[in-house]
């Protein structure tokens, strides 16, 4: 085929059209170059002072970002952490992605590692994944160190030039000065890059922040109002062809046969490949082989053509036969019934204790005041706005991967493994992400695209349809809960016993993380992390996995556990005839981190139980990723059962805030995400396969259902640095269902809400 030259340094395409225009004789748009200008990719020129920053002669500071921009604002927040220390002019700051290939080749400077916590790789960028709400809290120390170190080197360079001591040189807004001397960072950047400091400077404490804590304009916004921001799915590489893929609708099933002859003469169709299972690519779901469970691909088929639509049409028309791999009689009902059966049997031998205080079982057995309830939460799919995709080009000595990824080093190692190349020869070009929510940590699409590209020898863009994206999700597990509590005559709890049976993510894909039979994420917020203290407490956990691949979904275990515990606490309050707010506060131990956010959310919402029928307020509370979020939902339910979530007040204690507006945006985003799931979210399984495939069935919240969301900061400061991307998801569902109970007396114990008739 055509010879082509990929610009090796920058992920840009100039001149040539998309879709191998020359090869296929398409019209070549004159302005393709203009719209493919990608200012967030690596820059040429300028002086690198350290791996994180480059200073140009005109004083432009380019800051490299190790995390992936998927809406949470890392392209603004991470540069702020560096710039705060560097003391450059924020107006001159540009953000670009850090290079995962460099991270694979170059070790981190020892001084950076010494200062930084939580490194994930030995590489120069240390931590390049985006998850666990960790961008700021887990990277801030070494980013601050990078900025501070660069600042002091710049000062030293100026001091050397001016014959003065570094201590009398100041650095402000990108200008170095001392006495009558002054110069820009740009002038001294080259000299600074050669300087070794005797000791590294201390980084600032929060009371010294000038830039951090302000809501500067997001650096990515201008690119996101005119189509200029390029996502993985927008990748255009000269000579590129397209792949449409379909894999076994039943996870772990297999493609028995396909008839490429039936479609191979259609326009533009070039080839078909069997995926896995005797074809190309490392097959997933050999459950004996843990390593393959996460990134391995499913058995299926790819059709290659000169345009995506041609590839997709041929794929859809091509006859295929599937085998369900022994899972053909599984349904969501059968999965959850098995769990409920275990839940109903406290003596089931598969239980392991997750927490134990006193003797809850005995106290409950002896009590005559017992409250019991069972809760169920379903499987969910991430529904990333950008369907899954990956573009790959694999040659004998190099692989290039263009992808919307939450973990570029992981994309790199998966591609290296699949391409059979050393990591140094693999280049991952991270694009903007059309959301991630955890799905884009998995890398199965990277493995699939790498395998196809390797077989093909040409650059190829693999796009999953929305239907394929949903059906081939890596799902938030279902979970089931039983609670029993005994109270004294006044309704004050004496003993608390909680059993949890769920599909475990750790057991499925990281069994080494299991501890004494407990998946710590599956019991998040329910074990010793429970916000409430009981004199006697027992928490037991058992696993009931299914053949579905499960994965982290924004806020992970907390996403569903908060619904269960916050509903049950509400039920206890109701049984005791107590106000749900007072009741919660009464169960919190001295000095509880939950108290202030809860009080603030209640106060700001104007908490009251004195509302007319059809109106209600409800509370939800959770801690996740070091942050407490308390929420009060206010709902109305019409006589005909029409629910409207009117408002949600969110109080958050993440310790410190580096950009208040970004936090507010994350609160709004989290509430919408949590509310969508609470109202509508449910993945059904029929004959072993996922039923939902597109937005007509897997419903999303829309603008006409949007509640008013008010964010309140209940910051405790000090050493607390919590995340903000996820922690406000978990409280939404219980806040709303508790409000529905207050409005209607109807208790929702199984999500989603839409399955319940709220008609009075």
């Amino acid at each position, binding site marked *: 085929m055509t010879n082509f030259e990929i610009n090796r340094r920058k992920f840009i395409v100039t001149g040539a*059209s*998309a*879709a191998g*225009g020359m090869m296929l004789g*398409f*019209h070549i*748009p004159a*302005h*393709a170059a203009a*719209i*493919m200008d990608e200012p967030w990719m690596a820059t040429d020129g300028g002086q690198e002072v350290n791996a994180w920053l480059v200073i140009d002669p005109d004083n432009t500071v380019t800051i490299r970002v190790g995390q992936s*921009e998927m*809406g949470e604002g890392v392209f603004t927040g991470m540069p702020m952490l560096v710039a705060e220390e560097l003391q450059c002019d924020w107006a001159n700051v540009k953000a670009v992605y850090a290079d995962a290939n460099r991270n694979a080749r170059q070790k981190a400077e020892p001084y950076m590692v010494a200062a930084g916590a939580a490194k994930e790789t030995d590489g120069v960028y240390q931590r390049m994944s985006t998850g666990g709400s960790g961008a700021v809290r887990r990277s801030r120390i070494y980013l601050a160190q990078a900025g501070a170190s660069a600042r002091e080197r710049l000062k030293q360079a100026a001091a050397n030039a001016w014959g003065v001591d570094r201590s009398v040189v100041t650095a402000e807004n990108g200008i170095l000065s001392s006495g009558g001397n002054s110069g820009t960072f740009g002038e001294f950047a080259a000299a600074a890059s050669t300087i070794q400091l005797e000791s590294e400077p201390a980084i600032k404490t929060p009371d010294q922040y000038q830039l951090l804590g302000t809501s500067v*304009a*997001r650096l*990515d*916004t*201008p*690119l*996101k*109002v*005119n*189509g200029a*921001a390029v*996502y993985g*799915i*927008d990748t*255009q590489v000269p000579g590129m062809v*397209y792949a449409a893929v379909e894999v076994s609708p039943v996870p772990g099933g297999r493609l028995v046969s396909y008839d490429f002859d039936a479609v191979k003469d259609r*326009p533009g169709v070039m080839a078909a490949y069997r995926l896995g299972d005797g074809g190309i690519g490392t097959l997933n779901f050999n459950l004996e082989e843990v390593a393959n469970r996460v990134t391995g691909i499913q058995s299926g088929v790819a059709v290659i053509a000169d*345009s995506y*639509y*041609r590839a997709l049409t041929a794929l859809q028309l091509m006859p295929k036969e599937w085998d369900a791999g022994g899972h053909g009689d599984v349904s969501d009902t059968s999965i959850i019934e098995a769990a409920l059966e275990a839940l109903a049997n406290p003596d089931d031998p598969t239980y392991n204790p997750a927490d134990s205080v006193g003797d809850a079982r005995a106290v409950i057995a002896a009590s005559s005041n017992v409250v019991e309830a069972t809760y169920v939460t379903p499987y969910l799919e991430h*529904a*990333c*706005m*950008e369907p899954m995709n990956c573009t790959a080009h694999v040659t004998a000595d190099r692989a290039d991967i263009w992808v919307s990824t939450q973990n570029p080093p992981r994309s790199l190692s998966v591609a290296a493994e699949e391409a059979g190349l050393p990591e140094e020869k693999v280049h991952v070009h991270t694009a*903007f*992400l*059309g*959301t991630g929510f955890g799905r884009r940590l998995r890398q199965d699409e990277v493995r699939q695209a790498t395998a196809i590209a390797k077989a093909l020898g040409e650059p190829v863009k693999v*796009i999953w349809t*929305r239907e394929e994206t949903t059906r081939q999700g890596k799902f938030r597990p279902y979970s089931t809960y039983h609670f029993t509590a005994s109270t004294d005559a006044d309704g004050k709890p004496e003993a608390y016993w909680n059993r949890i049976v769920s599909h475990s993510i750790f057991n499925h894909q990281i069994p080494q993380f299991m501890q004494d039979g407990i998946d710590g994420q599956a019991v998040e917020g329910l074990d010793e992390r429970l916000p409430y203290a009981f004199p006697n407490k027992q928490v037991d956990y058992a696993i009931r996995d299914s053949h579905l691949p499960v994965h982290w979904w924004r806020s992970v275990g907390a996403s569903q556990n908060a619904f269960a515990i916050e509903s049950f606490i509400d039920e206890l309050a109701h049984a005791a005839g107590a106000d749900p707010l007072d009741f919660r506060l009464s169960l919190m131990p001295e000095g509880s981190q939950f108290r202030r956010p809860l009080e603030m959310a209640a106060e700001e919402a104007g908490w009251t139980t004195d509302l007319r029928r059809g109106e209600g307020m409800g509370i939800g509370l959770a801690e996740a990723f070091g942050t407490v979020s308390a929420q009060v939902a206010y709902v109305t339910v019409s006589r005909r059962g029409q629910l409207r979530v009117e408002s949600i007040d969110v109080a958050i204690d993440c310790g410190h805030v580096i950009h208040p507006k970004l936090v507010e*945006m994350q609160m*709004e*985003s*989290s*509430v*919408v*995400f949590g509310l969508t799931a609470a109202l509508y979210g449910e993945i059904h399984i029929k004959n072993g396969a996922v039923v939902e495939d*597109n*937005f007509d069935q897997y419903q*999303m*919240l*829309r*603008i*006409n259902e*949007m509640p*008013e*969301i008010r964010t309140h900061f209940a910051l405790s400061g000090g050493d607390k640095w919590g995340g903000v991307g996820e922690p406000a998801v978990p409280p939404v569902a219980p806040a709303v269902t508790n409000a529905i109970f207050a409005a209607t007396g109807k208790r929702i114990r199984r999500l989603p809400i839409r399955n319940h008739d709220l008609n009075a």
Partner: protein
Amino acid sequence: MAFDLNVNGASYTVDVEPETPLLWVIRDNLGMTGTKYGCGIAKCGACTVHIDGKKVFSCTTKVSAAVGKEITTIEGLSEDNSHPVQIAWIEEDVPQCGYCQSGQIMAAAALLEQHPSPSDLNIDTLMSDNICRCGTYSRIRKAIHRAAEIAQG
């Protein structure tokens, strides 16, 4: 088959099957990737473009139906982010991941053509075709009201 298209004021000829969705022609053949694929079934609005000033889902519009009409994509809304909707979007910090925003902005621009001073009900009705998984809805609402002000000077 060859089709002549007018996109953002320029003429193009593409050689594709007549039933090819306009979305894929714009993205793959013309190389304009601002218009996004989200669902392919007219359920998310990510692919919204204007045809003769009216908003349409390009994922369910056949290329053959767009011949002889004026197609506007996000790239053609303004040269320099100067359309009132774009100005308002920047002022109100609407985008998060940004993936849905081309569609949101094209839908909002069409809405303002129809309702220069839109009510919240107009916004609920005409913007509920568009999904935003980042939940930027309240900022979208504010920005549409702001864009109306900007447009009216």
